[in-house]
Protein backbone atom coordinates (compact mmCIF):
# COMPACT_ATOMS: atom_id res chain seq x y z
CA UNK A 1 0.00 0.00 0.00
CA UNK A 2 1.61 3.25 -1.06
CA UNK A 3 1.75 6.35 1.07
CA UNK A 4 0.57 9.82 0.21
CA UNK A 5 3.28 12.52 0.40
CA UNK A 6 1.46 13.94 3.45
CA UNK A 7 1.68 10.59 5.24
CA UNK A 8 5.27 10.13 4.14
CA UNK A 9 6.28 13.36 5.85
CA UNK A 10 5.30 11.82 9.18
CA UNK A 11 7.90 9.10 8.74
CA UNK A 12 10.72 10.36 6.55
CA UNK A 13 12.64 13.41 5.38
CA UNK A 14 13.05 14.38 1.75
CA UNK A 15 16.51 13.10 0.82
CA UNK A 16 17.55 13.84 -2.74
CA UNK A 17 21.18 12.83 -2.50
CA UNK A 18 22.03 9.11 -2.64
CA UNK A 19 25.05 9.52 -0.36
CA UNK A 20 22.99 11.31 2.25
CA UNK A 21 20.25 8.69 2.00
CA UNK A 22 22.80 5.90 2.49
CA UNK A 23 24.35 7.73 5.45
CA UNK A 24 20.90 7.67 7.06
CA UNK A 25 20.39 3.99 6.20
CA UNK A 26 23.75 3.02 7.69
CA UNK A 27 23.11 5.02 10.85
CA UNK A 28 19.65 3.50 11.19
CA UNK A 29 21.00 -0.06 11.18
CA UNK A 30 24.14 0.64 13.23
CA UNK A 31 22.21 2.48 15.91
CA UNK A 32 19.61 -0.27 16.07
CA UNK A 33 22.42 -2.81 16.62
CA UNK A 34 23.98 -0.63 19.33
CA UNK A 35 20.64 -0.13 21.07
CA UNK A 36 19.88 -3.89 21.07
CA UNK A 37 23.35 -4.60 22.46
CA UNK A 38 22.89 -1.90 25.09
CA UNK A 39 19.59 -3.48 26.13
CA UNK A 40 21.17 -6.96 26.17
CA UNK A 41 23.97 -5.63 28.38
CA UNK A 42 21.59 -3.97 30.79
CA UNK A 43 19.39 -7.09 31.03
CA UNK A 44 22.49 -9.17 31.68
CA UNK A 45 23.52 -6.84 34.49
CA UNK A 46 20.02 -7.12 35.97
CA UNK A 47 20.02 -10.92 35.74
CA UNK A 48 17.16 -11.07 33.25
CA UNK A 49 19.01 -13.71 31.24
CA UNK A 50 15.86 -14.95 29.45
CA UNK A 51 15.80 -11.95 27.11
CA UNK A 52 19.53 -11.43 26.57
CA UNK A 53 19.86 -13.98 23.76
CA UNK A 54 16.97 -12.49 21.80
CA UNK A 55 18.33 -8.95 22.11
CA UNK A 56 21.74 -10.23 20.93
CA UNK A 57 20.13 -11.98 17.96
CA UNK A 58 18.32 -8.77 16.98
CA UNK A 59 21.61 -6.85 17.28
CA UNK A 60 23.24 -9.42 15.03
CA UNK A 61 20.50 -9.01 12.39
CA UNK A 62 20.88 -5.24 12.46
CA UNK A 63 24.63 -5.61 12.01
CA UNK A 64 24.04 -7.89 9.01
CA UNK A 65 21.72 -5.32 7.47
CA UNK A 66 24.27 -2.59 8.16
CA UNK A 67 26.84 -4.70 6.32
CA UNK A 68 24.50 -5.04 3.32
CA UNK A 69 23.96 -1.27 3.22
CA UNK A 70 27.71 -0.75 3.58
CA UNK A 71 28.36 -2.86 0.51
CA UNK A 72 25.91 -0.80 -1.54
CA UNK A 73 27.31 2.41 -0.05
CA UNK A 74 30.82 1.48 -1.23
CA UNK A 75 29.75 2.45 -4.75
CA UNK A 76 28.76 5.98 -3.71
CA UNK A 77 30.27 8.92 -1.92
CA UNK A 78 28.69 8.83 1.54
CA UNK A 79 29.20 12.02 3.56
CA UNK A 80 30.08 12.04 7.26
CA UNK A 81 27.10 13.51 9.08
CA UNK A 82 27.40 14.78 12.63
CA UNK A 83 24.88 13.10 14.96
CA UNK A 84 22.72 16.23 14.93
CA UNK A 85 22.79 16.57 11.14
CA UNK A 86 20.58 13.54 10.53
CA UNK A 87 17.07 14.45 9.47
CA UNK A 88 15.03 11.88 11.37
CA UNK A 89 11.48 12.97 11.98
CA UNK A 90 11.88 11.96 15.65
CA UNK A 91 14.86 12.72 17.90
CA UNK A 92 16.19 9.18 17.47
CA UNK A 93 16.54 6.94 14.41
CA UNK A 94 13.45 4.92 13.38
CA UNK A 95 14.83 1.59 14.61
CA UNK A 96 16.37 2.76 17.91
CA UNK A 97 13.42 1.64 20.07
CA UNK A 98 12.54 3.93 22.95
CA UNK A 99 14.95 3.07 25.78
CA UNK A 100 12.53 4.27 28.44
CA UNK A 101 10.12 1.49 27.49
CA UNK A 102 12.49 -1.24 28.64
CA UNK A 103 12.03 -2.86 32.03
CA UNK A 104 14.30 -5.12 34.07
CA UNK A 105 11.57 -7.78 34.20
CA UNK A 106 10.57 -7.56 30.54
CA UNK A 107 9.94 -10.83 28.70
CA UNK A 108 10.72 -12.09 25.21
CA UNK A 109 7.18 -11.14 24.23
CA UNK A 110 8.01 -7.50 25.10
CA UNK A 111 11.31 -7.73 23.25
CA UNK A 112 9.53 -8.81 20.08
CA UNK A 113 6.91 -6.08 20.43
CA UNK A 114 9.72 -3.54 20.69
CA UNK A 115 11.51 -5.05 17.69
CA UNK A 116 8.28 -5.11 15.66
CA UNK A 117 7.67 -1.46 16.46
CA UNK A 118 11.22 -0.68 15.29
CA UNK A 119 10.96 -2.65 12.05
CA UNK A 120 7.60 -1.12 11.21
CA UNK A 121 9.08 2.33 11.72
CA UNK A 122 12.09 1.38 9.60
CA UNK A 123 9.76 0.17 6.84
CA UNK A 124 7.77 3.41 6.93
CA UNK A 125 10.97 5.45 6.93
CA UNK A 126 12.17 3.85 3.70
CA UNK A 127 8.72 3.84 2.11
CA UNK A 128 8.45 7.54 2.99
CA UNK A 129 11.88 8.30 1.48
CA UNK A 130 10.80 6.56 -1.72
CA UNK A 131 7.69 8.73 -1.94
CA UNK A 132 9.35 12.04 -1.07
CA UNK A 133 12.63 11.91 -2.96
CA UNK A 134 13.05 13.47 -6.40
CA UNK A 135 16.12 11.37 -7.10
CA UNK A 136 15.44 8.18 -9.09
CA UNK A 137 18.34 6.28 -7.45
CA UNK A 138 17.16 7.19 -3.95
CA UNK A 139 13.61 6.17 -4.87
CA UNK A 140 14.78 2.80 -6.18
CA UNK A 141 17.05 2.00 -3.22
CA UNK A 142 14.48 3.21 -0.69
CA UNK A 143 11.82 1.04 -2.30
CA UNK A 144 14.11 -2.00 -2.12
CA UNK A 145 15.00 -1.32 1.52
CA UNK A 146 11.32 -0.84 2.37
CA UNK A 147 10.54 -4.23 0.87
CA UNK A 148 13.30 -5.82 2.92
CA UNK A 149 11.96 -4.18 6.07
CA UNK A 150 8.50 -5.60 5.24
CA UNK A 151 10.08 -9.04 5.21
CA UNK A 152 11.61 -8.39 8.63
CA UNK A 153 8.19 -7.35 9.91
CA UNK A 154 6.71 -10.61 8.59
CA UNK A 155 9.49 -12.66 10.20
CA UNK A 156 8.89 -11.01 13.57
CA UNK A 157 5.17 -11.63 13.26
CA UNK A 158 5.94 -15.30 12.76
CA UNK A 159 8.12 -15.34 15.86
CA UNK A 160 5.67 -13.61 18.18
CA UNK A 161 3.33 -16.60 18.75
CA UNK A 162 6.33 -18.56 20.04
CA UNK A 163 6.32 -16.39 23.15
CA UNK A 164 2.99 -16.13 25.00
CA UNK A 165 1.79 -12.75 26.13
CA UNK A 166 2.79 -12.43 29.81
CA UNK A 167 0.20 -12.15 32.57
CA UNK A 168 -0.90 -8.70 33.59
CA UNK A 169 1.27 -8.66 36.72
CA UNK A 170 4.44 -9.57 34.81
CA UNK A 171 6.35 -6.66 36.36
CA UNK A 172 5.41 -7.57 39.95
CA UNK A 173 8.53 -7.78 42.10
CA UNK A 174 8.39 -9.08 45.67
CA UNK A 175 11.62 -7.24 46.40
CA UNK A 176 11.26 -4.05 44.37
CA UNK A 177 14.06 -1.52 43.95
CA UNK A 178 11.58 1.32 44.57
CA UNK A 179 10.92 1.40 48.32
CA UNK A 180 8.41 4.19 47.80
CA UNK A 181 5.87 2.00 46.08
Amino acid sequence: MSMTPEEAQNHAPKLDDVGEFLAHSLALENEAAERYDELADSMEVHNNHDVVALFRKLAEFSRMHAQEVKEIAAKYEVPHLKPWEFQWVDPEGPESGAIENSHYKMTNWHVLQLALHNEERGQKFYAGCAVLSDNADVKKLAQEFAEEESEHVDTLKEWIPRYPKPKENWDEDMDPPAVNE
Partner: protein
Amino acid sequence: MEAVQLTAKDYKSAVKPIWCPGCGDYSVLAAITNALAEHGRPLHDVAVISGIGCSSRIPAYTSVYGFHGVHGRSLALASGVKLARPDLTVLVAGGDGDGLSIGGNHFLHACRRNVDMTYVIMDNQVYGMTKGQASPTTDADWTQSKLTPEGTGVNPVQPLTLALAAGAQFIARGFSGNPRGLAKLIYEGINHPGFSIIQVMSPCITYRPEQRDWKSMMKDSAYEATDNLAEANRRLLEEGDFSTGVIYKGPKPAFNPIGSGNTPIAEIEKEFAL
Protein backbone atom coordinates in the same frame (compact mmCIF):
# COMPACT_ATOMS: atom_id res chain seq x y z
CA MET B 1 51.28 9.14 11.03
CA GLU B 2 47.69 9.71 9.96
CA ALA B 3 45.27 10.41 12.79
CA VAL B 4 42.72 7.63 13.35
CA GLN B 5 39.10 8.77 13.23
CA LEU B 6 37.59 7.66 16.54
CA THR B 7 33.92 6.76 16.83
CA ALA B 8 31.58 7.20 19.79
CA LYS B 9 32.10 3.52 20.60
CA ASP B 10 35.82 4.11 21.10
CA TYR B 11 35.02 6.54 23.93
CA LYS B 12 32.94 3.90 25.74
CA SER B 13 34.65 1.47 28.13
CA ALA B 14 33.95 -2.27 28.34
CA VAL B 15 32.20 -1.79 31.70
CA LYS B 16 28.47 -2.45 31.38
CA PRO B 17 26.34 0.26 33.00
CA ILE B 18 24.33 -0.90 36.00
CA TRP B 19 21.70 1.82 35.57
CA CYS B 20 18.07 0.67 35.63
CA PRO B 21 16.94 -0.32 32.14
CA GLY B 22 15.23 2.78 30.76
CA CYS B 23 17.22 5.34 32.81
CA GLY B 24 17.84 8.58 30.91
CA ASP B 25 21.53 8.45 31.78
CA TYR B 26 22.17 5.82 29.07
CA SER B 27 21.38 8.42 26.44
CA VAL B 28 23.48 11.05 28.19
CA LEU B 29 26.45 8.69 28.00
CA ALA B 30 25.73 8.23 24.28
CA ALA B 31 25.55 12.01 23.80
CA ILE B 32 28.85 12.57 25.63
CA THR B 33 30.68 9.92 23.61
CA ASN B 34 29.17 11.22 20.36
CA ALA B 35 30.23 14.78 21.18
CA LEU B 36 33.76 13.57 22.02
CA ALA B 37 33.95 11.61 18.76
CA GLU B 38 32.99 14.71 16.78
CA HIS B 39 35.54 16.70 18.70
CA GLY B 40 38.06 14.02 17.80
CA ARG B 41 40.55 14.40 20.64
CA PRO B 42 42.61 11.30 21.45
CA LEU B 43 41.41 9.33 24.47
CA HIS B 44 44.42 10.34 26.57
CA ASP B 45 43.65 14.04 26.06
CA VAL B 46 40.26 13.90 27.76
CA ALA B 47 39.25 13.50 31.41
CA VAL B 48 35.76 12.93 32.82
CA ILE B 49 35.37 13.78 36.51
CA SER B 50 32.38 13.07 38.76
CA GLY B 51 31.09 12.92 42.31
CA ILE B 52 28.66 10.29 43.62
CA GLY B 53 25.24 9.25 42.35
CA CYS B 54 23.82 7.11 39.55
CA SER B 55 24.69 9.85 37.04
CA SER B 56 28.17 10.19 38.53
CA ARG B 57 29.04 6.68 37.36
CA ILE B 58 29.74 7.99 33.87
CA PRO B 59 33.57 8.08 34.12
CA ALA B 60 33.61 4.27 34.57
CA TYR B 61 31.69 3.88 31.33
CA THR B 62 34.08 5.97 29.25
CA SER B 63 37.53 4.98 28.06
CA VAL B 64 39.16 8.38 28.64
CA TYR B 65 40.85 9.39 31.88
CA GLY B 66 38.35 9.45 34.72
CA PHE B 67 38.00 10.22 38.40
CA HIS B 68 34.94 9.07 40.35
CA GLY B 69 35.38 11.45 43.25
CA VAL B 70 33.67 12.43 46.47
CA HIS B 71 29.98 13.36 46.65
CA GLY B 72 29.51 17.01 45.68
CA ARG B 73 33.18 17.69 44.99
CA SER B 74 33.35 16.99 41.27
CA LEU B 75 33.70 20.63 40.22
CA ALA B 76 36.52 21.29 42.70
CA LEU B 77 38.32 18.16 41.52
CA ALA B 78 37.83 19.02 37.88
CA SER B 79 39.08 22.59 38.39
CA GLY B 80 42.24 21.13 39.89
CA VAL B 81 42.67 18.72 36.98
CA LYS B 82 42.23 21.49 34.41
CA LEU B 83 44.59 23.89 36.16
CA ALA B 84 47.26 21.21 36.54
CA ARG B 85 46.77 19.91 32.99
CA PRO B 86 45.41 22.76 30.85
CA ASP B 87 46.01 20.67 27.74
CA LEU B 88 43.23 18.23 28.69
CA THR B 89 39.60 18.54 27.63
CA VAL B 90 37.79 18.26 30.98
CA LEU B 91 34.19 17.17 31.38
CA VAL B 92 32.28 16.90 34.63
CA ALA B 93 29.26 14.61 35.06
CA GLY B 94 26.83 14.40 37.96
CA GLY B 95 23.34 14.74 39.31
CA ASP B 96 21.19 17.51 40.75
CA GLY B 97 21.79 16.17 44.26
CA ASP B 98 25.54 15.96 43.81
CA GLY B 99 25.81 19.36 42.14
CA LEU B 100 23.19 21.44 43.92
CA SER B 101 22.84 20.03 47.46
CA ILE B 102 26.16 19.02 48.91
CA GLY B 103 27.99 20.50 45.94
CA GLY B 104 25.98 23.72 45.78
CA ASN B 105 28.79 25.88 47.05
CA HIS B 106 31.25 24.50 44.52
CA PHE B 107 28.62 25.04 41.84
CA LEU B 108 28.44 28.78 42.52
CA HIS B 109 32.18 29.22 42.54
CA ALA B 110 32.78 27.07 39.47
CA CYS B 111 30.33 29.33 37.61
CA ARG B 112 32.09 32.51 38.68
CA ARG B 113 35.64 31.16 38.38
CA ASN B 114 35.04 30.17 34.73
CA VAL B 115 37.68 27.44 34.44
CA ASP B 116 37.59 25.96 30.93
CA MET B 117 35.55 22.77 31.41
CA THR B 118 32.12 21.37 30.55
CA TYR B 119 29.65 20.41 33.27
CA VAL B 120 26.87 17.98 32.32
CA ILE B 121 24.39 17.97 35.19
CA MET B 122 21.76 15.26 34.88
CA ASP B 123 18.62 16.58 36.52
CA ASN B 124 16.04 13.97 37.53
CA GLN B 125 14.70 15.96 40.46
CA VAL B 126 15.50 13.15 42.88
CA TYR B 127 18.33 11.32 44.63
CA GLY B 128 18.31 8.15 42.50
CA MET B 129 21.22 6.29 44.02
CA THR B 130 19.96 6.51 47.61
CA LYS B 131 16.48 5.33 46.62
CA GLY B 132 14.37 8.30 45.85
CA GLN B 133 14.59 11.24 48.24
CA ALA B 134 13.79 14.83 47.27
CA SER B 135 16.63 16.88 45.81
CA PRO B 136 17.04 20.66 45.48
CA THR B 137 15.26 20.63 42.11
CA THR B 138 12.26 18.59 43.34
CA ASP B 139 8.94 20.42 43.26
CA ALA B 140 7.78 21.55 46.70
CA ASP B 141 4.62 19.44 46.51
CA TRP B 142 6.17 16.09 45.48
CA THR B 143 4.91 13.62 48.07
CA GLN B 144 6.31 10.27 46.88
CA SER B 145 9.17 9.93 49.34
CA LYS B 146 8.53 8.66 52.86
CA LEU B 147 10.99 11.28 54.08
CA THR B 148 8.78 14.09 52.78
CA PRO B 149 5.26 12.62 52.67
CA GLU B 150 3.67 16.05 52.52
CA GLY B 151 6.20 17.43 50.05
CA THR B 152 9.33 19.36 50.90
CA GLY B 153 7.50 22.67 51.07
CA VAL B 154 10.69 24.26 49.78
CA ASN B 155 11.03 26.14 46.49
CA PRO B 156 13.05 24.18 43.95
CA VAL B 157 16.36 25.60 42.77
CA GLN B 158 16.50 26.81 39.15
CA PRO B 159 19.98 25.57 38.18
CA LEU B 160 20.42 27.72 35.07
CA THR B 161 19.11 30.92 36.63
CA LEU B 162 21.49 30.30 39.50
CA ALA B 163 24.38 29.63 37.11
CA LEU B 164 23.63 32.83 35.22
CA ALA B 165 23.55 34.87 38.42
CA ALA B 166 26.83 33.30 39.54
CA GLY B 167 28.58 34.34 36.32
CA ALA B 168 28.58 31.24 34.11
CA GLN B 169 29.28 32.17 30.49
CA PHE B 170 27.79 29.22 28.60
CA ILE B 171 24.38 28.00 29.67
CA ALA B 172 22.30 25.34 27.93
CA ARG B 173 19.55 22.83 28.59
CA GLY B 174 19.15 19.45 26.88
CA PHE B 175 17.02 16.33 27.16
CA SER B 176 18.17 12.71 27.34
CA GLY B 177 15.28 11.79 25.02
CA ASN B 178 17.01 13.79 22.29
CA PRO B 179 20.56 12.42 22.48
CA ARG B 180 21.56 13.94 19.12
CA GLY B 181 20.50 17.42 20.12
CA LEU B 182 22.22 16.87 23.45
CA ALA B 183 25.44 15.78 21.73
CA LYS B 184 25.42 19.09 19.85
CA LEU B 185 25.02 21.08 23.08
CA ILE B 186 27.89 19.17 24.72
CA TYR B 187 30.03 19.61 21.60
CA GLU B 188 29.39 23.37 21.68
CA GLY B 189 30.05 23.43 25.41
CA ILE B 190 33.43 21.75 24.89
CA ASN B 191 34.28 24.29 22.18
CA HIS B 192 33.35 27.21 24.42
CA PRO B 193 36.46 28.65 26.09
CA GLY B 194 35.50 28.73 29.77
CA PHE B 195 33.03 27.01 32.07
CA SER B 196 30.05 25.61 30.21
CA ILE B 197 27.03 24.13 31.95
CA ILE B 198 24.48 21.86 30.31
CA GLN B 199 21.49 20.93 32.44
CA VAL B 200 20.13 17.66 31.09
CA MET B 201 16.60 16.62 31.96
CA SER B 202 17.28 12.89 32.40
CA PRO B 203 14.37 10.84 33.77
CA CYS B 204 14.76 8.53 36.75
CA ILE B 205 12.22 5.95 35.62
CA THR B 206 12.42 4.03 38.92
CA TYR B 207 11.72 6.73 41.50
CA ARG B 208 10.05 9.29 39.22
CA PRO B 209 8.25 7.10 36.63
CA GLU B 210 6.02 10.05 35.72
CA GLN B 211 9.11 11.64 34.13
CA ARG B 212 8.53 9.37 31.13
CA ASP B 213 6.02 12.10 30.17
CA TRP B 214 8.86 14.58 29.69
CA LYS B 215 9.14 13.20 26.17
CA SER B 216 5.96 15.02 25.20
CA MET B 217 6.75 18.11 27.25
CA MET B 218 10.22 19.07 26.03
CA LYS B 219 10.51 21.51 23.13
CA ASP B 220 13.27 23.37 21.33
CA SER B 221 13.75 26.95 22.43
CA ALA B 222 12.31 29.51 20.04
CA TYR B 223 15.49 31.59 20.39
CA GLU B 224 19.14 31.49 19.37
CA ALA B 225 21.75 31.90 22.12
CA THR B 226 22.07 35.45 23.38
CA ASP B 227 25.03 37.30 24.87
CA ASN B 228 22.71 39.61 26.77
CA LEU B 229 22.37 38.67 30.43
CA ALA B 230 18.99 40.32 31.00
CA GLU B 231 17.62 38.73 27.86
CA ALA B 232 18.91 35.29 28.92
CA ASN B 233 17.19 35.66 32.29
CA ARG B 234 13.98 36.72 30.63
CA ARG B 235 14.07 33.69 28.30
CA LEU B 236 14.68 31.28 31.16
CA LEU B 237 11.61 32.65 32.88
CA GLU B 238 9.49 32.88 29.76
CA GLU B 239 10.24 29.41 28.36
CA GLY B 240 10.30 27.50 31.66
CA ASP B 241 12.02 24.23 32.56
CA PHE B 242 11.19 22.24 29.47
CA SER B 243 12.78 24.18 26.65
CA THR B 244 16.12 23.07 25.23
CA GLY B 245 18.98 24.85 23.51
CA VAL B 246 21.89 27.16 24.27
CA ILE B 247 20.49 30.07 26.22
CA TYR B 248 23.48 32.27 26.96
CA LYS B 249 26.98 32.65 25.57
CA GLY B 250 28.86 35.37 27.41
CA PRO B 251 32.03 37.20 26.47
CA LYS B 252 34.14 36.83 29.64
CA PRO B 253 37.45 35.04 29.12
CA ALA B 254 38.22 31.72 30.81
CA PHE B 255 40.02 31.69 34.15
CA ASN B 256 43.71 32.18 33.63
CA PRO B 257 45.73 32.12 36.86
CA ILE B 258 47.96 35.15 37.07
CA GLY B 259 51.35 35.23 38.73
CA SER B 260 53.74 32.40 39.37
CA GLY B 261 52.27 31.37 42.74
CA ASN B 262 55.70 31.09 44.30
CA THR B 263 55.42 33.63 47.14
CA PRO B 264 57.62 32.35 49.97
CA ILE B 265 55.68 30.88 52.91
CA ALA B 266 57.36 33.38 55.23
CA GLU B 267 55.82 36.25 53.26
CA ILE B 268 52.37 34.69 53.50
CA GLU B 269 52.81 34.08 57.22
CA LYS B 270 53.45 37.78 57.74
CA GLU B 271 49.85 38.47 56.73
CA PHE B 272 48.63 36.36 59.60
CA ALA B 273 51.00 37.73 62.24
CA LEU B 274 49.15 39.09 65.25
